[in-house]
């Protein structure tokens, strides 16, 4: 039986993946920094670093998957993995919280102050920018980036909300199928989830193209453009990561991995997917709608 496991906690011996990851990160980020400062050699280092990181990811996850499939991990190791994933997701939530905090601070406090509201506004706004009237969206008193239009919530964003919510349902249906032992349903629902994820990303790309091409809404569009693209951009990156995770899970399901009792990797990817889903709801409400 594939569920038979070790009686003692599995402690691996020696690993070359972390040092590889560190070297890859160093090359990639060092190269990126060099490139940002205008030296083209940075691009080469970035590319090499990215390749090293990708190799490391395949090697590291590959080894863990092999160990998992050969039953090296007992139930206690499984719990460690679960807790680890949960706290990783919590740290990601806090990363987004920084940008949501920025958005709220700008909308509730700093933009009205800039427009002269309240004790603090009286002291700064009229002195620095006497003609600025606070409003949201805004690109500030200097109209940084030029006039722009925003994307209405009930167009592509609402459609994307429906897509992501549906994908949350399909991934749950996949989980139920896995727990029933119905592998073909598992693969079908997983495929649907991954497909919805990539459709979401496609629409997001269309929306960004529209913003840049037709609405003049860009990263340069003052505080509105900054918060808009920072939040939606990082969310899109996380959707990409989540979709790739689910894609790996789909390929593993097709190969016959996972049992109705033991499928930590599936659940980890599903939790991550729900996390990007919830972040999107926050985005839809506070960035697009209100």
């Amino acid at each position: 039986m594939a569920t038979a496991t070790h009686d003692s906690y599995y402690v691996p011996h020696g690993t070359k993946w972390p040092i590889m990851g560190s070297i890859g990160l160093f090359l990639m980020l060092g190269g990126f920094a060099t490139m940002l400062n205008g030296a083209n050699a940075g691009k080469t280092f970035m590319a090499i670093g990215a390749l090293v990181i990708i190799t490391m990811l395949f090697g590291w996850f590959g080894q863990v998957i092999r160990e998992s499939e050969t039953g090296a991990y007992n139930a206690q190791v499984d719990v460690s993995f679960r807790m680890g994933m949960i706290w990783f997701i919590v740290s990601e939530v806090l990363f987004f919280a920084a940008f949501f905090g920025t958005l709220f601070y700008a909308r509730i406090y700093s933009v009205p102050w800039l427009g002269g509201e309240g004790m603090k506004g009286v002291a700064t706004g009229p002195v620095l920018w006497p003609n600025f009237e606070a409003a949201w969206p805004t690109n500030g008193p200097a109209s940084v980036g030029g006039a722009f239009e925003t994307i209405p919530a009930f167009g592509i964003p609402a459609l994307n909300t429906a897509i992501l919510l549906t994908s949350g349902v399909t991934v749950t249906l996949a989980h139920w199928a896995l727990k029933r032992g119905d592998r073909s349903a598992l693969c079908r629902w997983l495929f649907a989830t991954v497909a919805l994820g990539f459709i979401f990303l496609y629409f997001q790309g269309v929306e960004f193209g529209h913003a840049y091409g037709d609405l003049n809404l860009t990263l340069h569009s003052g505080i509105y453009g900054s918060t808009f693209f920072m939040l939606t951009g990082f969310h899109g990156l996380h959707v990409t990561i989540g979709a790739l995770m689910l894609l790996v899970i789909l390929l593993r399901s097709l190969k016959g991995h996972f049992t109705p009792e033991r499928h930590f990797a599936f659940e980890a990817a599903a939790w991550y997917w729900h996390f990007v889903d919830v972040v999107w709801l926050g985005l839809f409400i506070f960035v697009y709608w209100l």
Partner: protein
Amino acid sequence: MSSHTAHDEHHAHDDHHHGPEPGLMRWVYTTNHKDIGTLYMLFALLMFFVGGALAMGIRAELFQPGIQILEPELFNQFTTMHALIMVFGAVMPAWVGFANWQIPIMIGAPDMALPRMNNWSFWILPFAFTMLGMTFFIPGGAPAAGWTMYPPLVLQGGWNLAFMVFAVHLMGMSSIMGAINVIVTILNMRAPGMTLLRMPLFIWTWLITAFLLIAAMPVLAGAVTMLLTDRFFGTSFFNAAGGGDPVMFQHVFWFFGHPEVYIMILPAFGVVSQIIPTFARKPLFGYESMVYATASIAFLSFIVWAHHMFTVGMPLTGELFFMFTTMLIAVPTGVKVFNWVATMWRGAMTFETPMLFALAFVILFTIGGFSGLMLAIAPVDFQYHDTYFVVAHFHYVLVPGAVFALFAGAYYWLPKWTGHMYDEKLGQWHFWLSTISVNVLFFPQHFLGLAGMPRRIPDYAVQFADWNRISSLGGFAFGLSQLIFVYVVYKAIKGGEKATDRVWEGAHGLEWTLSSPPPYHSFNTPPKVTEAEAHS
């Protein structure tokens, strides 16, 4: 069925590895919590001396008025890098090293819960600090806007911004992975009978520290990312012309920054709570109140951040809110100090080096706490803000606070780690020289600050000359005294009197039931924990 053979294979595999791998690559590939703990601590010690060398440069420049050896631009680079290196390179990694060594052997686990990730969280650090350190050699030099990285100043430097931002990202990754490992190990790897309220205080404080890390580090990552995009990608987060606000950076930064100071000090509380009962030969007074006080401090640390910003122009309600929440922290901290003193009350005390450092911690950290209380009073802070009074305050909580607790813990557990007793006489010399010099170094800075000497400026008015000279002399003496510590550690690693398992006659806890040094795999079979051996 196939797994049965796999099962046997793994057993066979295990049999080949009862000890460390041979050769230098052991340290690069290791997944062993003790190896990784040692790496962390040695790295932290190295960074302590790099950051210390920068501090010596700063004190040499401030030895007398006028510009002597450091041009203002370089002086600013020194203060910025000194802080970044000491905070992220010395104190934090040192505590993670303690966590690695101690958590498994104090809760009865074979190793940390996620050993490969453990390796990565260490091995990111040398690369992060290479990236940070090499900014000294790039166009524009090292970051010079202070470790707090306030825009717009920080955006006006040379090449260093991007390197600093990515170095901070790497340090954040390392800290978050380390914190996840600590939480999972403590929650999932405890020996049977080691209930939560039987855990040693060091374990409790580190568990709470790990939660702080997970909540605070991602926010710092977000803050520096916005600096990067403001500089290179045209965003206007901190640019009022585009509707942003430079003060917003300070809010995001200090939402990380204040919990960060507790990340550096809570493990110190834990270590001191281990040491005082051992050398007072009495159980810790008010164990449960210590746990709740630590948790309260951690909670409060997230709602006090703007006490660093009283002078930037906040609405009055903000000033009041952050003033009162900050002063509230004195309550749980007072509980702790009271409990340490009550533990010693009528104890059969002896004064070996760990106890001396722990006692100095209690007294000198409390001085730093009181000056913090003064700074918490918003109207008074308008006078103190950005003066040497602030420098004196946070150096009191960080040097005779966090660093002394690190020394206390190092002397306390060095016999366990190396298997040899350290040189007690040299330890005492290290203690007395450090304690005297650290006060000569930092106490006069209170006077300088109250008299109005601004921080982060290489020159000063002549009326500040005397106290600055005394402070610098204390600084040089403190720096030199630390060489004794290196020699003591070296000597204990090399040999000396064999340490017994229990090492200290009054010590309680699982780590003292293991041999000194402990076997490569700490607890292969989990011990059964009873109330008596639970916590001291």
